[in-house]
């Protein structure tokens, strides 16, 4: 593990510098989630409230997961860019920890995810969202969201390793985003989907994570959704991480 922490932090600070100089990345982390939040609240808020849901309490969890997916998407671009410009090869030729490049990128992604989540939660709290379980629930909320962000970052990074161009990587990365988000419990209850879709919608990782965040910020069954979300995030992170490490090992 020699140098793992130091090398990861140096590469993490590089990733953060890169995102801080990219106006699109800042807009993606701050403006886009707020826009999403506002639009859904305006369009759906009254309908959902009329049906007996507290939409201000439920929607922030969805927007946080949306923000984690969205901020992670730029990983695909950054990884493809490093691969094509030869920086990945140069990093591999250096006497640094083998996992540090991936960890450095994850630090950059987590920084963006944190910014995004902070903005969304402030907006949510202003609108009436409450953390019913107190500080423990809040910390759990942040932890589950960041764990999911790591899985997303590694998955999007994998797309970057296999893509032929940085633009191509971005396009591919945007494909899973909308179906995963819309076909979840995020905007409408699972029971509202067609019967044959419900088993998929109720079990997919985005639903698991949104349900866990709602349970942590609200009331009701906690263990089930939290365990499902952790299993999904850790499982996906391992699979994507191993595949990324193998893809990176072939990059010259």
């Amino acid at each position: 593990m020699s140098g793992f922490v130091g090398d990861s932090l140096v590469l993490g600070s590089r990733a953060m510098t890169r995102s801080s100089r990219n106006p699109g990345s800042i807009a993606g982390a701050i403006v886009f989630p707020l826009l999403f939040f506002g639009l859904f609240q305006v369009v759906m808020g009254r309908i959902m409230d009329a049906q007996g849901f507290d939409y201000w309490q439920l929607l922030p969890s969805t927007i946080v997961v949306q923000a984690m997916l969205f901020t992670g998407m730029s990983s695909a671009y950054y990884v493809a860019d490093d691969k094509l410009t030869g920086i990945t090869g140069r990093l591999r030729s250096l006497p640094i920890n083998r996992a540090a490049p991936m960890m450095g990128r994850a630090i950059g992604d987590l920084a963006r995810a944190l910014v995004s989540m902070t903005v969304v939660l402030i907006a949510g709290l202003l609108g009436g969202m409450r953390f019913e379980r107190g500080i423990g629930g809040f910390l759990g909320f942040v932890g589950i969201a960041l764990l999911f962000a790591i899985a997303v970052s590694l998955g999007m990074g994998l797309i970057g390793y296999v893509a032929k161009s940085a633009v191509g990587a971005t396009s591919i990365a945007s494909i899973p985003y909308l179906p995963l988000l819309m076909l979840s419990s995020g905007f409408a209850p699972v029971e509202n989907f067609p019967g044959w879709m419900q088993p998929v919608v109720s079990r997919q990782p985005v639903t698991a994570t949104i349900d866990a965040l709602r349970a942590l910020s609200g009331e009701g069954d906690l263990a089930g959704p939290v365990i499902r979300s952790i299993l999904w995030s850790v499982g996906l992170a391992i699979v994507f991480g191993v595949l990324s490490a193998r893809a990176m090992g072939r990059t010259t």
Partner: protein
Amino acid sequence: MVVTMTAPDQPVSGEPTAVEIVDLHKRFGDVHALAGVSFEIGQGEILGLLGPNGAGKTTIVNILATLMQPDQGQATVAGYDVVNQADQVRESIALTGQFAAVDEVLTGFENLVLFARLRGASRRQAQDRATDLLERFSLTEAGDRPVGGYSGGMRRRLDLAASLVAPAPVVCLDEPTTGLDPRSRAELWSEIRRLKTDGRTVVLTTQYLEEADQLADRIIVIDRGRVVAEGTPEELKARSGSQACVLTLVDLEQQEAAIDALTDLGEAVVDDELGTLTLADCGADRLTEIMKRLDEADIRVAEVALRRPTLDEVFLELTGSAPEEAE
């Protein structure tokens, strides 16, 4: 089962060679990129690896830089085995690849600090080193600008500087001047020469005979994954034919007369497209004789040029076949 008696942190050999390659093989699918390459590089030597696209030069560099593993054979850098002692090899080698692999978003200074810190320097040491290197590579003024706005030559200089942030004894330069204009190329050449005075060993791959000629102490010519020739630049040039003399006549009608006048000086080849006459194997010493004869025959010459052998011609001499084009 191979039993290694050497401790993993000890060099495999105690020889004063900086790089040693023995019977290296590498396949990519059906392509035999390296088909048994062996050579040594002495400490402080600049070795030119000369060959066309697809000859296997980059594969050798990638194996030395631990980016690839050979299918067969052995390679050591500073005495360390590239497969079993990869960490020590990475401490001993600096790589400048075919693309200027620097971060376009960061400034020149930030790039050098980044790579120095990844080489283990403290923040302070890294900043000092970066400042020194920017100065040395005439990039001080551009140092606080993002690399995205640099010219091709500036990028390559920064790329080379990024390889020098640590005192790695062996520096691999993979086609460092491909695509550069002549002035930037000359600037980079003088930096590469300085590496030798630093006491570093340099592995330089190039497609240009002139570049190898200018910089290398010794040249190894590679074609289709094999070493086809080895020697000093002088030795190779002597083996591969010397300069040719290219004449352009004012009046194309006089070509026949010119060929007759020069007949015993060698066979003249006519290029109809360019309207030139080429006398092979003809150095500067023969120019006076040629001009004298043409003058006597009252043939007016528009242009005379001495042309060094091209890489294609060296290949033709060395391998008996023209170099293959890369896919």
